[in-house]
C-alpha cells in the first residue's frame, strides 16, 4: 500500500496524482475487536460482581434474580467503561443499543422455550405413522406410538380453510369498502354556502351517508375483533348447532372461526390499502379505468404482499383456537374428512382433550399434536411468505405454466 505524501496545510491537493492510490477500505462505524472485548469483559465482570453480591455478601438466591441482577450490573459496568473510554454521549448510545438488543432477545427467549419444550416432550412421537393414522382401534393400554393425529390435522385444515374461504373475501371486501368508498366521503352538507347547487347538496349528502355508513361498519368491525373467541363459539352453538338443529360438525366450527377471522383480516387489510398512494388510483382512472377495475388491477396488486400478510395473520389468529371449536365441532377419534356432516376433531381440541386424560401415553400424544400444530403454522407461514414475496407477474406466469390461469384477454 502506498501512502500519499502528507499535504501542506492550506494548499489544495495536487491536481494530477501520478501514483494510483491503492483502494484501502475504511469502515468508520465498524465494531472493532476492542469493542468486542469491552463487551465480553463487561459481561464477565458483571457475572463475577453478581456472584460476589449473591453468595459472598448477602444471602440472595434464585436463578431469575441472578440473571436480572447480572444484566443490571452489566449495563452499569458497560456504561462506566465506555464513558471512561469514549465519553458520555458514546456511552449512552451504546447502552441504549444494548438495551434494545436485550429487549429483542427477551422476546425471543419465551418463544424459543415454548418450541424447545414442545420439541423435547413431543418430538420422539413424530413419525410418518403419527401423521397418517387416526386413533382408530387404539386401546387403553396401547403405547403412545400407536395411532396418530391425521384426523385432527385434516379437521384443522378443513375448518380453517373453510373459515378463510368465508371470512377472508368478506374481510378484504369490507376493507375495500372502508378505504376506497367510505373514505372518499366526508362531505359536510351544513358547510355548504347558501347558493350551493342541487348537485352539490345531493353529492354532499351521498358522501356524508357513505362516510357515516363506513364509520358504523368500522365500529362494528372493532367490536367484532373484541369478541372473546368462546362467545363466538357459544353464538354458533346456540344459533346454528342447536337453534337450527344443524348439529355438531366441522362447518359449524368454521363459522365460529370465520367470525373471529373477518374483523382481523378487515382491519389489517384496511391499514395496508391506506398505504397505496392516491396518485396510482388517479393514474388508473385517467387511463379510462373504472373504479372497480382500479381496485382490482392497481390497488390490490400494489398491496398484494400486505393483503397476503393480512390473511396470514388472520389464519394465525384462528388456527390455534380451541374454545369455539370445543363447542361446535364435537369430537371424533377417527378420520372424518367431511366437514359438512358428522363430528370432527381438530389439533387444538385434540391437545386439550388428551392433555386432560390421566394416562401418560395420552399426555405424550397431546404434546406431539401440539408440535404438529406449530409445524403446521410454520408451513403455512412459509407458503404465504413465498406467495407474498413473489415478483409481480411471476405468480401469473407460474399459474399459466401449470394451465391454471385463464387465458389473458391481451394474449
Amino acid at each position: 500500500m502506498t501512502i500519499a505524501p502528507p499535504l501542506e496545510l492550506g494548499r489544495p491537493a495536487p491536481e494530477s496524482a501520478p501514483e494510483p492510490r491503492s483502494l484501502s477500505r475504511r469502515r468508520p462505524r465498524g465494531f472493532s475487536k476492542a469493542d468486542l472485548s469491552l463487551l465480553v469483559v463487561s459481561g464477565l465482570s458483571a457475572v463475577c460482581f453478581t456472584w460476589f453480591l449473591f453468595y459472598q455478601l448477602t444471602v440472595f438466591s434464585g436463578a431469575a434474580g441472578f440473571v436480572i441482577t447480572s444484566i443490571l450490573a452489566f449495563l452499569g459496568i458497560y456504561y462506566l467503561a465506555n464513558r471512561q473510554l469514549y465519553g458520555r454521549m458514546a456511552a449512552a448510545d451504546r447502552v441504549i443499543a444494548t438495551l434494545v438488543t436485550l429487549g429483542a432477545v427477551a422476546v425471543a427467549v419465551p418463544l424459543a422455550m415454548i418450541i424447545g419444550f414442545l420439541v423435547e416432550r413431543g418430538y420422539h412421537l413424530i413419525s410418518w405413522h403419527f401423521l397418517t393414522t387416526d386413533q382408530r382401534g387404539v386401546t387403553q393400554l396401547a403405547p403412545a406410538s400407536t395411532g396418530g393425529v391425521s384426523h385432527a390435522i385434516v379437521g384443522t385444515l378443513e375448518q380453517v380453510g373453510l373459515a378463510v374461504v368465508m371470512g377472508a373475501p368478506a374481510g378484504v371486501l369490507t376493507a375495500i369498502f372502508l378505504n376506497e368508498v367510505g373514505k372518499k366521503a366526508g362531505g359536510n352538507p351544513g358547510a355548504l354556502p347558501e347558493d350551493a347547487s342541487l348537485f352539490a347538496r345531493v353529492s354532499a349528502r351521498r358522501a356524508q351517508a357513505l362516510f357515516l355508513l363506513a364509520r358504523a361498519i368500522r365500529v362494528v368491525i372493532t367490536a367484532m375483533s373484541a369478541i372473546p373467541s368462546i362467545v363466538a363459539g357459544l353464538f354458533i352453538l346456540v344459533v346454528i348447532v342447536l337453534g337450527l338443529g344443524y348439529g355438531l360438525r366441522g362447518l359449524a366450527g368454521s363459522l365460529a372461526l370465520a367470525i373471529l377471522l373477518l374483523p382481523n383480516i378487515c382491519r389489517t387489510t384496511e391499514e395496508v390499502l391506506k398505504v397505496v398512494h392516491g396518485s396510482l388510483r388517479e393514474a388508473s382512472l385517467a387511463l379510462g379505468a373504472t373504479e372497480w377495475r382500479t381496485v382490482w388491477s392497481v390497488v390490490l396488486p400494489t398491496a398484494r404482499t400486505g393483503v397476503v400478510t393480512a390473511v396470514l395473520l388472520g389464519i394465525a389468529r384462528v388456527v390455534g383456537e380451541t374454545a369455539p371449536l370445543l363447542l361446535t365441532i364435537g369430537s371424533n377419534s377417527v378420520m372424518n374428512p367431511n366437514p359438512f356432516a358428522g363430528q370432527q376433531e381438530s389439533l387444538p381440541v385434540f391437545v386439550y382433550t388428551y392433555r386432560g386424560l390421566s394416562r401418560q401415553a395420552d399426555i405424550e400424544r397431546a404434546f406431539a399434536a401440539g408440535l404438529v400444530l406449530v409445524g403446521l403454522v410454520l408451513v403455512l407461514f412459509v407458503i404465504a411468505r413465498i406467495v407474498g414475496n413473489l415478483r409481480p407477474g411471476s405468480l401469473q406466469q407460474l399459474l399459466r405454466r401449470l394451465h391454471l390461469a385463464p387465458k389473458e384477454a391481451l394474449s
Partner: protein
Amino acid sequence: MTIAPPAPPDPAGTASTNGRGGLSPGSLVADEVSAWFSGRLVLESVSLEMPKSLVTALIGPSGCGKSTFLRILNRMHEVVPGAELGGQVLLDGRDIYSADMRATEIRKRIGMVFQKPNPFPAMTIEDNVLSGLRFSGTKVRNKKAVVQEMLERAGLWNEVKNRLRALGGELSGGQQQRLCIARALAVGPEVLLMDEPCSALDPSSTRRIEETIAEIKNDVTVVIVTHNMQQAQRVADQCAFFLAEENRPGHIVEAGTTSQIFENPTDERTADYVHGRFG
C-alpha cells in the same frame, strides 16, 4: 431537432375513434368553464381554444386554478369529492360532460400525465405501457410492437429495451415520467394533458420530455401546465396566463401565441409574471 413525420393517428389500431377521413381529431374548446370545491368558486368563466396539433401552455402562479382547469378537461375534476363545474368542454365539437358521454371513454380519448411520475409499481415496464389497454379490455394483436412503438415515441425505448420485465418503480424519476407518457399514449388519446410533468425532474430528463412533446404534437393535441417560463417558450405554440387575485377566483388574464405573451403582452400583470417580477 428532427420532427417525426406525422404518423397515422392510430398505428396500434386500438382506439375506437379512428377513421375520420385521415384528419387527426383532437380539437378541444373550453367554453365558460367554472369550478367549485365544496361550494367555493375557484375558477371563473375560463374560455380557451386548444386547436389540434398545437401545444398549449397554461402558466400562472400556484393556486390560480391551472391544474383544476386541466383536470376539468378530462373529467378528473369530478373524482374529487365535493367538486362541481359549470360551462362546457367541447372535444371536436361535442360536450364531454353531456349525458351520453362516459367519463371512462373521455379519459381514454384525453390522456393525462401527472406532476409526480406514477407508474404502477406492481407491474413490469411492459405491463405499465399496456395497462390502459388492458383496463378497457381492448384486444391487441401484437403486444410487443405496441410496447416498442409507445416507448419509442416517449423516448424511452433505447434505455429499457433489454429490461422490459423490470418493474416500473426500478426506473429513475425521468424514465418513470417517460414511462407514464408511453402509458398514456398507448391508449391512443387525441389529447394529452400534462400537469407540470417536469417539475420533479433534472434538466436532461426535462429535455427528453420536451423532445417527446415536439415529436407527438403532430398526432396529439398537447396541453401542458408549467411553472417554467423557458419551458413554456420552448415547447408551446400558444400560452394562457392564469391568475387568482384577492376576491377574484382563478381566471385567464391573457391568452395568445407564445411570442405574443412573452414579447408583447397586452396586460401589465402578464408582463410582470413572464418577466419574473412576481409569482
